[in-house]
């Protein structure tokens, strides 16, 4: 196996705003803190020694509250903001060392950017907006148009290409913003709070669509967000920023399980546990499992003894087949279980979140199966297990 190389490597990124950046940088390297540096030099430390990698095809979420440096960090990647120190490598290109001219070329071909306030050009139609990057590159008019129309279709705006941005709703405008970035077919998408200005419902739709798109397009995405729920919905790795520093990197579940400090713990305190904890985390070994050729009588005895609400039935290879409840078993005598199966849909994948599990539980008879990648029975979750899992998380996050 070849070693997977990160697409973007950010190393020791530091940004100091102000005229006295040089002096401030030496103070910073001498170990002084932000407040002291501000007092001594009037310079503001925006980013301090931030390092992270982004793998090919990954969505990395740079998260933090306002003023944490997350947007500065994103803009240092394509040098919309000039970093004071540190390096940004995209593949093997050191972005921080490029000349103006090479930087322009890199921005034209490698980066697509999506902005919080959409930043569509109001004097251009949607088509002309989406064409913008190609126009800048000098692509011929008809090829430009084809590519732009394809991008517009990809984001679901087909038929709106002759409208002006002001004629579109916020959600549609941001689709156009995304299309403008995608039309270039860039390797890297930089998304700056791309969905934060949208209504909550539209925001959730857009998140889901981005995930679906990403599954197809496999871009390398750096997504800046202040919203933990958004980070979870996008499902990528998270770099959590505070006061210009990256305080922790990992998945939301990592943050929940092992917060690096009090700040991280508080940040994830109000996390939607159901959306983070997986069915695999919450399941337990079933007490009542029978193969499908077993008789109803055998199963009834076993079920009564186990205390499970339903009997879980598997095939010879151990794959989940369905469940049978006590009422059905009673009076079914020697009938084989496979003829009595009901609730063949009462299962979730081990990687599914508890949100999905809850929906299945609500529709079923108090217990669902959890299956592995090949359909094999991995465990079960009953109502009580769900409650137990939630309680466990609560106690973990509340100290």
């Amino acid at each position, binding site marked *: 196996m070849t070693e997977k190389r990160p697409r973007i490597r950010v190393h020791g990124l530091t940004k100091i705003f102000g005229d006295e950046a040089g002096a401030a940088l030496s103070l910073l390297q001498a170990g002084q803190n932000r407040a002291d540096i501000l007092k001594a030099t009037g310079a503001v430390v925006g980013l301090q020694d931030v390092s992270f990698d982004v793998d090919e095809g990954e969505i990395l979420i740079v998260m933090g509250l306002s003023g944490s440096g997350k947007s500065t960090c994103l803009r240092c990647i394509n040098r919309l903001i000039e970093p004071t120190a540190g390096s940004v490598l995209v593949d093997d290109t050191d972005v921080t060392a490029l000349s103006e001219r090479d930087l322009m070329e*890199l921005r034209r071909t490698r980066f697509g950017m999506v902005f919080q306030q959409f930043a569509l050009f109001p004097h251009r139609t949607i088509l002309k907006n989406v064409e913008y990057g190609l126009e*800048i590159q000098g692509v011929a008019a008809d090829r430009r148009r084809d590519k732009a129309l394809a991008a517009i279709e990809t984001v679901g705006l087909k038929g709106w290409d002759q409208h002006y941005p002001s004629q579109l709703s916020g959600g549609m405008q941001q689709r156009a913003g995304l299309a403008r970035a995608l039309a270039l077919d860039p390797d890297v998408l930089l998304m700056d709070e791309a969905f934060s200005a949208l209504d909550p419902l539209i925001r959730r739709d857009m998140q889901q669509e981005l995930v679906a798109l990403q599954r197809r397009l496999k871009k390398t995405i750096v997504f800046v967000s202040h919203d933990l729920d958004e980070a979870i919905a996008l499902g990528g790795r998270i770099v959590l920023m505070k006061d210009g520093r990256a305080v922790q990197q990992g998945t939301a579940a990592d943050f929940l399980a092992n917060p690096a400090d009090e700040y991280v713990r508080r940040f994830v305190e109000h996390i939607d546990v159901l959306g983070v904890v997986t069915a695999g985390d919450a399941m337990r070994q079933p007490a009542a499992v029978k193969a499908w050729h077993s008789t109803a009588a055998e199963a009834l005895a076993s079920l009564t003894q186990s205390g499970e609400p339903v009997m879980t039935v598997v095939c010879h290879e151990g794959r989940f087949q369905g469940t049978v409840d006590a009422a059905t078993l009673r009076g079914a005598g020697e009938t084989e279980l496979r003829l009595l199966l009901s609730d063949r849909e009462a299962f979730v994948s081990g990687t599914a979140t508890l949100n999905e599990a809850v929906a299945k539980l609500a529709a079923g008879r108090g217990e669902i199966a959890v299956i592995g990648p090949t359909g094999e029975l991995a465990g079960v979750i009953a109502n009580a297990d769900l409650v137990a899992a939630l309680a466990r998380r609560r106690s973990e996050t509340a100290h």
Partner: protein
Amino acid sequence: MAFEIPRIPLAEWCDIALDWATEHFSGVTRAISAVIGTGIEEITDFLVGLPPWLVIIAFGLLIWRLTTARIALFSMLGFAFLWNLELWRATMQSLVLVLVSTLFALAIGIPIGIGAALSKRFWRVVAPALDMMQTMPSFVYLIPAIPFFGLGAVSACFATIVFAMPPTIRLTALGILETPSQLVEAADAFGSSRWQKLFKVQLPLAIPTIMAGINQTIMLALSMVVIAAMIGAGGLGGEVWKAIQRLEAGQGFQAGIAIVVLAVILDRITQHIARHMRRDREGV
């Protein structure tokens, strides 16, 4: 014995500078003057040579295309009124002078405005010059204009350009500088060069603001009409000037009102275009 502070010979300096410039450049400026003067005359003669009703209808159609039927109709009525007052020739002279001066003011002013927006250093040079151009009494421009361009329409045109250009420069620069920073950032993020950013984003977005500048330039040019008449530019200003010299209040007011009518027509047209563009840019 009191110390006497000698008077600074400002007037003499100005004279020296002007004499020097006249000596070296008046050949060129006289040549330019001849060309422009002929041009202005030709256009005026052409317009006056046509039957007024035809000109009025042609103007009406043009204005209708540029704006609305209402403004076109109003303008036609205005021109008909001026014709009725037997001020047709004077009106055409003034109109040509105003439009030619405005064209020159735009041709010079818009590039200067762009330069001022792009370079802070250039702006620091331009800004005080603009203040001076606008606060200096406009009569003063007439005096040096004569040795350079001779008596008549071209000197009037020159003085008008100097006096009327500042709003175009200022508003061009303002329009470019007030491009929303996020749009400039977006243009940068897609790798636009400085010129691409200017021509594809900043200038198109600045057009409504520039139009407002053009409107002001036209109005200022029109306000120069009377002053320009003092050096023989003729037109409606000439009528006013004649009336002043002969103390004919009625004639004076008549010509004055004619200038107002022309001003209102030009203002309505340019304002409408500016507003229309703004609405286009910002959506309904």
